[in-house]
C-alpha cells in the first residue's frame, strides 16, 4: 500500500466522513474552489457540491456560531480556520456558546474546529500559534492534536463522530513532511487515549504534536550516545487527558520531562505536572522538567524562531540532566 501524508490523511478523513454521513459538511474561508490555503479540502467541492462545502466570508465567529446552530439541528459541521491563529476571533463563541451549550441548555453541539497550527515554518507571530492552552481551561470542549498521519486520520474521524465539540489542531510542519501506511478500513482513533510512541525504562518524555518527532530524535541520540532508554508518550488528546497513561509512564521510569512547542508559562506542561504530582509524587526521583518555547511571541526570522522554539538538542540536554539527577 502507498504511504499517506499527514495532510492527505486529514483529507481522507473528511472525505470518508462526508461520504458516510450526509449531515457532515464543511465550512471556512477559501475551502471550496481553492481547496483551502493548504489544499486540505482540495477536491471536496467537486465531490460534495456547494451545499456541503461552504466558502464563507472572513468571519471566524460566524463560522463557529453557524456551525453550532446547524449542529443543534442535527448536522455535523467541520469548520476550517485558515490558520489556527484566527481561532482567537471565535474565542468568545467557542468558550461561552459552544462549550456550554450542552450543560446550560441540553443542546447537542457536535462541531469540529480544525486548522493549521504550529511553528518551525517561518510563519511569524500570527501564522505559527499553538492555541491549545487557551482552551484547555474550558470544560465542555475536547482538544486533540495528532502527531502522525494515522492519528490525523483516526482522530479527525473520531472528532466528527463525537457528540461533543472538538478542537482539532493539525500541525502544518507535519503536513507534507511525514507519511506512513495507514490502517485499512474505517480507522478511528478514540479521543482521550495517549499513544506510546517509544518504549523506554530510564526516563519519560511526555509530549504531543510536532515535538513528538523531536523527542523521538532525541531518544535515539540518547540511546546511541548515552545508552539511555527513553520512553516517549504522545498525548494526542489534551482534553480529556489520558491520566492513566501519564501516570503509568511516570511510575515506570520515575523521571519525567514534558516537551511542548507552545510557550512555557500557562502551557499544557503545567497541567501535566500538577496531575503527575497529585498521582505519582512518590514515584518521582527527580523534578519534572519542561522543555518549551520561551515566553515571547514567536518571531519570524529563522535564527530567532529557532532560538525560541524547543529543539532536539534542548531535549537531549535536559534528558541528560534528568537522567543524571
Amino acid at each position, binding site marked *: 500500500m502507498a504511504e499517506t501524508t499527514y495532510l492527505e490523511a486529514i483529507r481522507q478523513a473528511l472525505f470518508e466522513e462526508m461520504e458516510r454521513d450526509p449531515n457532515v459538511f464543511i465550512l471556512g474561508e477559501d475551502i471550496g474552489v481553492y481547496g483551502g490555503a493548504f489544499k486540505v479540502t482540495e477536491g471536496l467541492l467537486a465531490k460534495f457540491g456547494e451545499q456541503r462545502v461552504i466558502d*464563507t466570508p472572513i468571519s471566524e465567529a460566524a463560522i463557529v456560531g453557524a456551525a453550532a446552530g446547524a449542529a443543534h439541528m442535527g448536522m455535523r459541521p467541520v469548520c476550517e480556520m485558515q490558520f489556527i491563529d484566527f481561532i482567537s476571533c471565535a474565542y468568545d463563541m467557542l468558550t461561552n456558546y459552544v462549550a456550554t451549550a450542552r450543560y446550560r441548555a441540553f443542546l447537542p453541539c457536535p462541531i469540529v474546529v480544525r486548522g493549521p497550527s504550529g511553528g518551525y515554518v517561518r510563519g511569524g507571530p500570527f501564522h505559527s500559534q499553538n492555541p491549545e492552552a487557551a482552551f484547555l481551561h474550558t470544560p465542555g470542549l475536547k482538544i486533540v492534536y495528532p502527531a502522525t498521519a494515522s492519528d490525523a486520520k483516526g482522530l479527525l474521524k473520531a472528532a466528527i463522530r463525537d457528540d*461533543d465539540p472538538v478542537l482539532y489542531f493539525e500541525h502544518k510542519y507535519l503536513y507534507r513532511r511525514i507519511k506512513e501506511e495507514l490502517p485499512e478500513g474505517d480507522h478511528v482513533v478514540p479521543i482521550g487515549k495517549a499513544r506510546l510512541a517509544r518504549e523506554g525504562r530510564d526516563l519519560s518524555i511526555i509530549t504531543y504534536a510536532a515535538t513528538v518527532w523531536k523527542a523521538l530524535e532525541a531518544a535515539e541520540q540518547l540511546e546511541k550516545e548515552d545508552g539511555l532508554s527513553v520512553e516517549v508518550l504522545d498525548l494526542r488528546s489534551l482534553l480529556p487527558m489520558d491520566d492513566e497513561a501519564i501516570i503509568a509512564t511516570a*511510575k515506570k521510569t520515575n523521571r519525567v520531562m514534558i516537551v511542548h512547542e507552545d510557550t512555557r508559562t500557562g502551557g499544557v506542561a503545567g497541567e501535566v505536572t500538577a496531575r503527575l504530582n497529585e498521582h505519582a509524587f512518590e514515584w518521582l526521583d527527580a523534578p519534572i522538567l519542561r522543555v518549551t518555547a520561551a515566553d515571547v511571541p514567536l518571531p519570524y526570522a529563522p535564527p530567532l524562531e529557532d532560538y525560541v522554539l524547543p529543539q532536539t538538542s534542548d531535549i537531549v540536554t535536559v534528558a541528560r540532566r534528568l537522567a543524571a539527577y
Partner: protein
Amino acid sequence: MAASRTSGRARPRGGRLTAGDERPSAQLTHAQRLELYYYMRLTRSLEERLVNLYRQTKVVGGLFRSLGQEADAVGSAYALDRTKGDFLSPLIRNLGSMLVQGAKPLEILRQYMAKGDSPTRGRELNIHFGDLERGFIGQISHLGDMVPVMAGVTLSFKMRGEDRVGLVYVGDGATSTGAFHEGINFAAVQRCPLVVIVENNGYAYSTPTSKQTAAASFADKALAYGIPGERADGNDVLAVYDVTKRAVDRARRGEGVTLIELLTYRRKGHAEHDNQSYVPPGEIERWERTNDPLDRYVKVLLDELGATRGELAAIDERVQSEIDAATELAEASPAPEGPDALRGVYADPPTMAPLWYREGIGSAVSQHERPAGWGTYHG
C-alpha cells in the same frame, strides 16, 4: 417615535424593495386576535408576579422586565408558524416571544427561582433556556452571539430543504457587536431563511441609541448587508405581526434575510435594581400614558375588531389563575442538588468525577503507596 399603526420600510432606499403594504393581520381570526391579547397580558402579569417574588427575595439574581415591549415580542413571534417547526432565539426582554412559542409560566417561575426542576435544572438564569421541540433556543449573555447561531440553524433548514424559518432578536445595543455583524452578513450571503429583529427600545442599559450608533435608523443597516430593511411601530402588535409576517413569508419563499427595526421603549430599568436616573424626566411617563402596547391593543380590539370587554376580562382572569397555579407549583419545587452540577458537561463522559476531597473517594494522597521506597520501580 411613531405612534401610528401602519408599518413600512424605514426609507424607500433601504435595500431591495419588498411588498411592504400587505397587512397579513387582516387574515387573523377573532380567536387569534384574542390570543395575541392573551400572550401580551400573560407576559405583563407574569412579570408583575415575578416582581412580587423578587421583593420577597424568592428570585435568585436579577429581574429583567419587558414592560412596554410586550407587543414587540408577542406580535413578532406570532408571525412564525409553529406547525412548520419555525424557530426563534429570544433575548432577555422576549418573555412574550417565548410564551407564544410554547414556554410555560411554570417554567419561567422555576427558572427565576433557580429550582431543580426548572428547564435548566438551576444551571442558567431567568429566561435563558430553550427547547428544540418547541423551537426556541436559549440565549447566552454575550450579546450578538445568537445571530451567527441562528444563521446556522436556518442554514440547516436551507441545506435540508425544510420549510422552516428562523427569527432572531437583537437589542439596539447588541447591533454594535462584532457577532451581530458577522452573523447577519453570513446569513445574508447564504440567503438563510432568517428574520433579524432589532428591538430599538431607546436604551442599552443606560446608553441611549445616539451613543450606540450614528446611523439614522437601525433599518438602514440592512443596506450594508444587501437585504431588505423595514421599520415598524413596535408598540402596535398588529403592525409588528404584519412586518414580521411579510419577512417570514419572504424567508419561506427562499428570498433570504430581512432586517426589521421595531420602535419601542424600555419603561423599566435595565434590570430591577436600575433606578433609571439617566432617563430625561417625563419620558417614561409619556410612553406609559400615550403608548402602552396593551392599552393600545385593547382599544383597537374594542373599537375596531369587535371584541367585547367581557372577552378581555375572561382572558385576564384566565391569565391570573394560570399564574397563581404556576406560582404555587413553582414555590413548592425543590432546589437542585449539588452533585447534579457535575452532569452533562459532555455527552461523553456524562458525568465529571467529583473532586477527591469532596466525596471521600480514592484521593490523590491515599494513592501514594510506592512499594519500593525511592528505588526504581518496574511495574
